[in-house]
């Protein structure tokens, strides 16, 4: 098994822990992951608002490079995952968009074939690697650690390619295989607000508060996320969202929890980059770690 890897701009910045833990987990599972050579920004939602057609062209460059490579392309960031998939759909469904993108690729002498399969790490871990292989790697089980699995919007909407659109369970199953206990989290696909906290702060805060409240109400000890912006929003504004420090949950990437269970040293999985240390919870639940 070999995958091309598209980190996206956030995984180099605020989402560093995601990249670190993701690569560590895949290394432990002996799955080869090769970064896409000279990848460019996908544009995410911001470029799409600025200029849709240019946005498709930007995404198409990455898709073409990846298709050339021959392996499936893993895109861990939800926005990148969506934009790359969306580009493929729109190029196919609107021939005139296809024409513009083809022409753009021609000018930089890249092949027009952009049909690479864009995959999410949840999909790859669950369906390609398989729960059995994951369970076999667990050396430091999570002892019933109560996790609220937060999927966010863009990996299930509008394209639900590997999981149920309204009630996804891929992350649930992966973490349960590591010994975690998944709490009831009915708002698991609600939007975190994306970049609204920066541009429209009080509205953004409202959405973040809602997610933290429901996790807290259901006694989650940790929130597991799949998207760097979701993780950032929940973590960076957890204090602000709390009244008198009621929310103090570590907000982690699901890959970090997997790394923990695989016995990968905390530092290698980016735990030191969290604002709220996970060590107290680990001690309480008597979860061994490296």
């Amino acid at each position, binding site marked *: 098994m070999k995958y091309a890897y598209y980190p996206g701009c956030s995984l180099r910045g605020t989402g560093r822990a995601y990249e670190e833990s993701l690569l560590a987990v895949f290394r432990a599972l002996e799955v080869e992951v090769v970064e896409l050579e000279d990848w460019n920004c996908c544009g995410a939602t911001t470029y799409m608002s600025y200029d849709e057609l240019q946005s498709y062209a930007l995404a198409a460059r990455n898709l073409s490079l990846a298709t050339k490579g021959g392996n499936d392309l893993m895109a861990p960031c939800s926005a990148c995952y969506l934009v790359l998939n969306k580009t493929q759909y729109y190029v196919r469904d609107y021939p005139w968009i296809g024409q513009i993108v083809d022409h753009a690729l021609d000018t930089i002498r890249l092949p027009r074939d952009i049909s690479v399969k864009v995959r999410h790490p949840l999909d790859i871990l669950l369906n390609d690697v398989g729960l059995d292989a994951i369970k076999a790697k667990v050396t430091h089980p999570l002892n019933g650690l109560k996790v609220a699995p937060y999927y966010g919007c863009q990996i299930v909407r509008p394209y639900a390619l590997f999981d149920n659109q*309204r*009630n996804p369970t891929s992350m649930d199953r992966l973490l349960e295989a590591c010994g975690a206990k998944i709490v009831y989290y*009915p*708002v698991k696909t609600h939007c975190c607000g994306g970049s609204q906290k920066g541009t429209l702060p009080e509205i953004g805060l409202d959405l973040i508060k*809602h997610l933290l409240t*429901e996790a807290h*109400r259901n006694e989650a000890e940790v929130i597991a996320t799949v998207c760097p912006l979701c993780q950032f929003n929940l973590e960076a504004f957890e204090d602000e969202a709390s009244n008198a420090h009621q929310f103090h949950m570590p907000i982690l990437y699901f890959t970090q929890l997997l790394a923990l269970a695989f016995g990968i040293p905390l530092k290698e999985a980016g735990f030191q980059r969290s604002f709220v240390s996970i060590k107290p919870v680990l001690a309480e639940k008597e979860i061994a770690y490296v």
Partner: protein
Amino acid sequence: MSDARNPDSAPRIGVYVCHCGTNIAGTVDVQALTEYAATLPNVAVSREYKYMCSDPGQELIRQDIRDLGLNRIVVASCSPLMHEPTFRGALARAGINAFLLQMVNIREHVSWVHTNKAEATIKAKDLVRAAVRRVGFHKPLEKRRVEINPNVLVVGGGIAGIHAALTVANSGKHVHLVERQPTIGGHMAYFDKTFPTLDCAACILTPKMTAVGSHPNITLWTYSEVASVEGYVGNYKVKVRHKPRYIIEDLCIGCQECVEACVYKEGRWADEFNLGLSKRKPIYLPFPQAVPQKVLIDPEACIEFKSHKCKKTCVEVCGERHAIDFQQTETIEEIEVGSIILATGFKTFDARRNAYYGYGVHPNVYTALEVERLVNASGPTGGEIVLRDGTKPKMVGIIHCVGSRDHNTNRWCSKVCCMYSLKLAHLIRERIGAEVYNFYIDMRTPGKGYEEFYDRLLDEGVHFVRGRVAEVTDWPVHPSEEGKLIIRAEDTLAGFVRRVPVDMVVLSVGLEPQGDARDVRRMFNISCSEEGWFLERHPKLAPVSTFTDGVFIAGACQGPKDIPDSVAQAGAAAAEAMALADAKYVELEPYTAHVLDDACSGCKTCLTICPYTAISFIEETKKAHVNEVLCKGCGTCVATCPSGSIEQNLFEDQEIFEEVEGLLAYA
């Protein structure tokens, strides 16, 4: 002068060009066309007239046949679908065979689709020329008569099936009513009250059910299904599969002492009639007013079937009646009928498909049908509207359009849900005085007394919120929402989003075709629409007949509808079946195919090709044979036969070639 009545003599053709007012004359130069037709070979006369289908128009033809000895007629006018029978009738009344006619469509095929007069006229001339050449080769044909068996089969014992059966039976004809459930009554038996009059459903239904059960002209087959259908209009042979109740029906008197005596002191299996809201024993009566009033045994639940070691207290208490028979098996019996009425009804939308409403996840989300059972006095809670934990709800939300008007599930409007939602709102207010919220998109109340029913509801203090509900959740945002189910919707009339906390959510589920509609329709050789409803012959003018002669449809199986419309359709279907029976015979169109035995090589290619299964293989002669009564004249076998040994009346090779050559010889 050649003999008009001897078609073997040289053709003397009369051509008649219709103006159809300005419909044709506006785009086609009818005068030029008529003059052109007169120049064609074998044409004895060529006329034009404003409205050929009118009495004077037809008289023109008849007069010419008599006076000029015409023996072939070409009418250039509208589509044959409109007036072929009219002109054939004119020929017949004038004394020549009706099939010596050829119509040319210069309306739908010329004047209605072209704008350039010169070009249209040229096209019309080409078509008339082709018809003139063809009609010379028409042979006289006779319609065939088939006798009609007066017995009628009604499939489905809901209100539509019951009404159809009673109507036919009252006329003296014999009816076989086949119902797959152990009792008749259909969905109507589940309801408490019916809109808009709030009549008690059982009170108006049970007399009809009893009438069916005791009618001398009705043979009631319950817990039975149709296994196969063979034959054709007037002559159907139907095999009915009678599932085993393990009770000898003639001996059971419905006393239910066996149910009382069963070794299971309490019910443990989901009661189907109460939609799983209560439990029943392995031996049970479907519901108190069941017709026939006979119990049945569920072999999956009964100990005797599993271990053969039951005390069989039921048999003991049945005593001298000996009505219980554990050895009973399924039987298949054949009946002969002349016409069939399908009244197989509908099923409700599975609310689990709309995950955002939480049915099956949150316990206090119910479907409307389940609430009907709660409200019904003979239901699982004795008519008490209560939640799963037995308490009465103080706030109830009714969500319209679940599984209707939605491209993600069913596109259609299910027609009855707005009305039954209003009815449930009324009953809930009346019985427990709860706050009721109806979330709707449009309030559809088209029937007689329906809008007035809505008016009545408007006085009752129900909250009407126009907005399709986005989701039903259990996470509270406001303190008043703790412990409740929250309905989130935009109140479109007010212009903002509302969150309404309720104790009970009622989903007004839409109507869908039965799950096996596509298999059933194949058995009866009819069609389904794209959505799965049985297809009527014409949506406006023939809503109860199908494209298969002798098979009629009635009620919700044809499309979602309420009880008055179902009963009306049932009456209509019964009338059509009775008309068929009273006519004693039916005439079949003669443009059927037939096998030329000398040429047939017995390759059997045509057998599987025929969409109407009208071709069979005769073992003795090793030749194919077309059943002229089943044949619909589609021509597929004629085209398929590798040795060209099938011919079709009115579409013989020579007739077709002449028509083609006529078209190709440009004017």
